[in-house]
C-alpha cells in the first residue's frame, strides 16, 4: 500500500457513516445522592449493584474494610422508581460475627430480590452465599443460603432472574486442581439451592436473562488470551452448546452483560490499555450484540481487523492520542435495557504520567444503543466531577428510567457509594 492509498483509506474510514447522533439530552442524569450517608463502614463503601422489581430498586454494596483485619458487611437500601430512599438507615444483608463480605450482586425474580456475594467468613478462603430480601425490605434468610461453600476459593458470583427464580454463576477451585472452573446453580424464589453444574464460563463469569433464556459470559485470563466467550445456559445452569468467542483482543478483560428482549444480549468490554509502545492499538469501550443462538451479530468484535486504528461500529468510545487532557475508556462498565433499547455506562479516564499511560480523574459516560451501535456517539457524561467516579452498576424500570450506582472516591481516601436516576428519550 502506498502512502496515498493509506491516507485515502484513513479518510474513507473517517467518513464512514456512524450512527446518527441524537441530542445529548437523549440521556438525562438526575441529582447525585448518597445511598447511605454516614454508613457504618468508616468512609469505605464499594462495589455497588442494583436491581428493579415490584416498582422499586434495591441497591446493595460493601460497607467497610475488606482486607486484613477488616469486617466488611453488605448493606442495602430500597429506592423508589424516582430514586427516593425508602430505608433511612439501610438494611444489613447478612449480620455475622466474623469474616468479610464482598462483591454483592442482586437480581429480582419470583417476587423477591436475591443478593449473592463472596464471603471470607472462615478467614482462609471464600464461599458463595446468598440471601433473599422482600420488596418490603425484610431479609428473608436469617442464615445465608450456601450456594458454594466447599473448600478453596469460590468467588466472583453473579446472578440473574428469569421472573420465577434465579441462576447464580461463579468460579471456583476443586480438589487439588490449579485451574479455576465456572459453575452455575439455580436458586428458587423460595430459597432452594440447586445442584452446581459446570458451565465452562470462567474467569469472571456473568449471567443475564433476556426474557426467554440465560446467557453466561466469561474471560479475561492471561495476557495474550483475554478474549470474552459466551454460552447459553438452561434454567439449571447446564451449558447448551460450546462456548463462542464474542469479543477478542481484550487485555485484562472486565465486562458487562444485559438482556435485550427479542434480540439477545449486549456484552460490553474495554479494549487495549495505553502502553508506551502502542502495541495494543487504540483503546475502546466495545459492544457486541449476542443473538438468540449465542453468537455475536457484529463479528468484527470477536475477530478485529488486523492493524486496526479507527473506530468500529460497535465501539462506544475510543482512546488514541496520548497527550495531557486526552481520555481513554478502560475498566468497568454496566448495561441495562430501558424498555426500548440498551443503555451502557462506562469508565473514561484522563491520561497522566510521563508517558501518558497512567489514569486519573475517572468519569462515567453513558450512551444509548441501537443493537450494538451507539446513538450517543460522543458519550454523555453522567458522573464527571473532579473526584474519581468508578465501578458503575445499572438497573432499569423498563420504562425509560434507570438507577445508576457507583463509587465516588474522595481525595482523602474515603469512598462513597452514590446514585443518580437516569432518564432516556
Amino acid at each position, binding site marked *: 500500500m502506498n502512502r496515498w492509498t493509506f491516507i485515502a483509506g484513513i479518510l474513507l474510514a473517517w467518513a464512514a457513516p456512524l450512527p446518527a447522533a441524537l441530542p445529548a439530552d437523549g440521556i438525562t442524569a438526575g441529582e447525585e445522592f448518597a445511598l447511605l450517608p454516614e454508613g457504618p463502614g468508616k468512609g469505605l463503601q464499594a462495589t455497588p449493584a442494583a436491581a428493579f422489581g415490584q416498582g422499586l430498586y434495591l441497591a446493595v454494596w460493601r460497607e467497610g474494610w*475488606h482486607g486484613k*483485619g477488616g469486617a466488611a458487611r453488605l448493606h442495602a437500601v430500597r429506592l423508589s422508581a424516582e430514586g427516593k430512599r425508602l430505608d433511612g438507615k439501610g438494611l444489613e444483608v447478612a449480620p455475622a460475627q466474623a469474616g468479610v463480605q464482598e462483591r454483592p450482586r442482586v437480581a429480582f425474580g419470583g417476587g423477591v430480590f436475591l443478593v449473592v456475594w463472596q464471603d471470607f467468613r472462615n478467614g*482462609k478462603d471464600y464461599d458463595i452465599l446468598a440471601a433473599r430480601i422482600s420488596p418490603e425490605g425484610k431479609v428473608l434468610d436469617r442464615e445465608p443460603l450456601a450456594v458454594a461453600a466447599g473448600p478453596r476459593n469460590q468467588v466472583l458470583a453473579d446472578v440473574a432472574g428469569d421472573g420465577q427464580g434465579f441462576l447464580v454463576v461463579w468460579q471456583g477451585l476443586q480438589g487439588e486442581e*490449579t*485451574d479455576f472452573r465456572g459453575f452455575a446453580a439455580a436458586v428458587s424464589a423460595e430459597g432452594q439451592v440447586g445442584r452446581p453444574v459446570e458451565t465452562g464460563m470462567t*474467569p469472571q463469569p456473568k449471567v443475564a436473562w433476556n426474557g426467554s433464556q440465560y446467557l453466561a459470559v466469561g474471560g*479475561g*485470563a492471561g495476557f495474550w488470551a483475554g478474549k470474552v466467550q459466551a454460552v447459553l445456559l438452561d434454567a439449571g445452569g447446564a451449558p447448551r452448546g460450546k462456548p463462542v468467542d464474542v469479543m477478542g483482543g481484550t487485555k485484562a478483560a472486565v465486562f458487562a452483560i444485559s438482556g435485550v428482549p427479542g434480540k439477545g444480549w449486549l456484552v460490553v468490554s474495554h479494549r487495549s490499555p495505553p502502553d508506551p509502545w502502542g502495541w495494543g492499538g487504540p483503546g475502546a469501550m466495545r459492544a457486541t450484540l449476542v443473538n438468540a443462538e449465542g453468537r455475536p451479530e457484529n463479528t468484527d468484535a470477536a475477530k478485529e481487523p488486523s492493524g486496526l486504528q479507527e473506530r468500529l461500529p460497535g465501539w462506544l468510545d475510543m482512546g488514541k492520542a496520548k497527550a495531557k487532557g486526552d481520555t481513554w475508556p478502560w475498566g468497568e462498565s454496566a448495561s441495562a435495557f430501558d424498555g426500548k433499547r440498551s443503555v451502557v455506562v462506562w469508565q473514561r479516564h484522563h491520561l497522566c504520567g510521563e508517558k501518558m499511560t497512567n489514569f486519573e480523574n475517572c468519569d462515567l459516560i453513558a450512551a444509548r444503543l441501537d443493537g450494538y451501535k451507539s446513538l450517543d456517539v460522543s458519550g454523555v457524561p453522567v458522573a464527571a466531577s473532579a473526584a474519581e467516579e468508578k465501578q458503575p452498576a445499572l438497573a432499569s424500570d423498563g420504562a425509560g428510567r434507570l438507577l445508576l450506582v457507583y463509587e465516588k472516591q474522595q481525595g482523602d481516601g474515603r469512598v462513597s457509594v452514590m446514585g443518580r436516576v437516569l432518564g432516556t428519550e
Partner: protein
Amino acid sequence: MRRSLPLTAGLLALACGLAFPEARGAEAEPQDMPAIIPDESAGDWIVDRFAGNSTAGPTFFQGPAREVAGLGRCGACPLPDGRVLVPFPDGWAEVDAGGTLRLVAASAPVGGTTAQVTASVAAWNPADKRVYTGGANCLVRLVERPDGPWEIEVVAGTPGKAGFADGPAQDATFTRIDNVIINGRGAVFILDYNQRIRRFENGQVTTLCAALRGGLADGPLDKARFNLIGLGGNLCAGEDDDTLYLSDHWNFVVRRIDLKTMTVSSVAGMPKPKEWQPAKQTARERRYNRNSDGPALTWASFNSGCAYVCWDPVHKALWCGGPDENRFRWLKGDQVLTVIGGKGADPWPRDRLGVPGETVKLVWNAVVAVDAQGRAYLSASSEPNGLWRAYNRKEARP
C-alpha cells in the same frame, strides 16, 4: 538427569576454559562461546507458584495465595518476620506465614510496578521497622493497623508537588519514585524518574547523581554518565551499606556505585558495538543484545537493554537481566551465568509447585526480591498475575 548437571556444568566450564583461553586469563581472543552457560547450581533450583493464579482473571480477590487474582505486574518485599508484602497495581497485599494473601492497603504504589519489569519497589527500613515506598511525588512509609487499611505516611516530599528540590524532608520534592533502597543504617536511596539518584538521611534529601540520561562513562560519580530511559531502570542495594547497583538500561550494562569512594564502574554487559553490520562484527560483538552468558564485561550481554538488578545476599550474587529475556541469570564473580531457565521445555510454570528451574520460561521477567533464605521472587509481565518463588533445594525450604 538433574543429578548429572553439576558434572555437566563442570565439564562445560572446563571445556570453556580450554576452548576460550580468555576465560582462564590467557590473552588470545576466543572465537566463540555458548550463549547459555549454566551456573553450577542450575540443576538445583525449583520454582513454585507463590502468589496469584493464571486462570483466575484480572479482578482482585484474596485467599490462599496461589488462588488469588488481580495482582497484575507486582513486586515483593520480604519482611524479617517471614511475611511478604506484595505491591500490585491496585494496592498492597500481605502473604502471611500460612500462605494466605490479604489486602492491607488499597492505595496503589506509584512508579515501579508500571514499568515493564522492575524490582525494589519497596524496602524494609531496619531503623524504624517500617516499609518505605514511593507515593505521588513523595516518599512514604506504611504503618500497620490491626483493624483497617494500613496508613500511608508521607516521610519526605509533598504529594502532588513534582520536582527535584533537595533540602529538609518537608521542603524536598520528588518527581516519580521508581525504586526505594534502604541500607543497614537506615539511609534511603531513591531512583527518581529514572533521572536522578537521591538520598534521604537524617531528615535531609540530597542528590547523588543527576546525569542518568545520556552517555556512558565510569569514574567519579559527579562525572559518570548513564543512559536510562523513561522505563526500565532499576536501582538495588549491594553487598554492603555503601554499594548500589543500577541497571543502566539503554547502555545494556550493570553499573556499580561505590558510595565510599563515590565512583562508578561497569560490572557486566555489552554496550552497543561501534561496528553495526553483523558481517563486520567479531564473534564477541555479535553477542550484543542477545542475552549471552560468559565473562561479565567481554562476552556477556543483555537483551533489549539492562532492565533489572537485584542483590542476593545469601549467594553473594547479583541477579540481572534485560526485558526480553526468558532466563534468570546472575552475576557471580566475574561471570554472568544462567541459574533458572534455558531449556525451555515448559512454556512457563503456570500454577504448579516443584517445577525444575531449568525448564522455566517466564517472559519479560525479573527477580524482584530475594529473602533471607536466598529464595528469589520472580515476576513475569507476560503473565501479569502474581509471583513465583525459586529456591535452591539444597539450601532453602519451599
